[in-house]
């Protein structure tokens, strides 16, 4: 039983490093969402259902969503500014 948990923890360690090494930000959003799901699995496995529930709502959904919104807002800004420069 504990070996499954150990495997999950090692997976977390590897994924965490993967998220840090992903230099493309959009890819990173997907990676961190996966990381959030994995983390909540770990919490669930180690008898922390309350935290698992928060983690899956925050870490796997709200957090990537917020990052996506921020990125799209910046992209929108860039596109708009370029368009205006073209018009001018």
């Amino acid at each position: 039983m504990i070996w499954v948990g150990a495997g999950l923890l090692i997976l977390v360690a590897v994924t965490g490093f993967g998220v840090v090494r992903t230099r493309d930000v959009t890819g990173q959003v997907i990676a961190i969402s996966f990381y959030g799901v994995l983390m909540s699995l770990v919490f669930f496995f180690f008898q922390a259902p309350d935290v698992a529930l928060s983690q899956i709502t925050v870490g796997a959904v709200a957090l990537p969503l917020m990052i996506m919104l921020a990125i799209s807002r910046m992209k929108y800004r860039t596109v708009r500014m370029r368009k205006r420069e073209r018009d001018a």
Partner: protein
Amino acid sequence: MRETLRVRLFFVFGGIFFLLFCSAARNLPPWGSYRGPYGDVIARVSVYERHATDVVNAINYDYRAMDTLGEEFILFTAVLGVLMLLRREQVKVNEGEKIDDRIRLSLTARASAMPALLVTVVFGFYIGLHGQLTPGGGFQAGVILASAPFLLYVCENTESFRRVTSHRALEVIEAAGAGGYAVIGLAALALGVPFLTNFLPLGTTGDVFSSGTIALISACVGFEVTAAFLLAGYAYLQEIIAGETPEE
């Protein structure tokens, strides 16, 4: 500092940090043998004392309620900060392309969002109301409820999304949730017991309306978190939704 030098230096000192951490961990109790006593004492007494079967929530909303009060105000402050940072300066709203609400998704997709929305809301309320009994509670419920309007956005009901999330009352709800928590604590003070002491009847263990202030605080937190996440989400989205052009 050049990046290569910075990273190399980091590997040296970060490595030392890592090794120190590892050598400290050697003196920790081995994994899987938690020794207590704090958690064990609370796990033993909380069901009797607080009539709450979910010990984690009993700790969060009663034994260590002051932490959660601070935590709610951290959330409150952050939303205030996000709103302030992303507040609109002078913007020009482009007439004509004001709200991009053209239907691109099929009607079926849009219609199927409604049941999903309903399920999300019901699930959110369920999680919130049973916080003292089963895993969940105000915070988790709040995040789930806040995700419901985003379903509207995903299904391109942008106008209704905007109407929900840009409502002036949202900020009042958020403040009322955070302030309500403080008021519950003050009510105890007014009754002559220390701040945040339970002053309501505890009810029968296992009932939805049991465990006194825990359920009440959980509800306040739920309101605050829902409003907070919606406000933050809208702050990021408003510019895109309203089709505004930034002014230089």
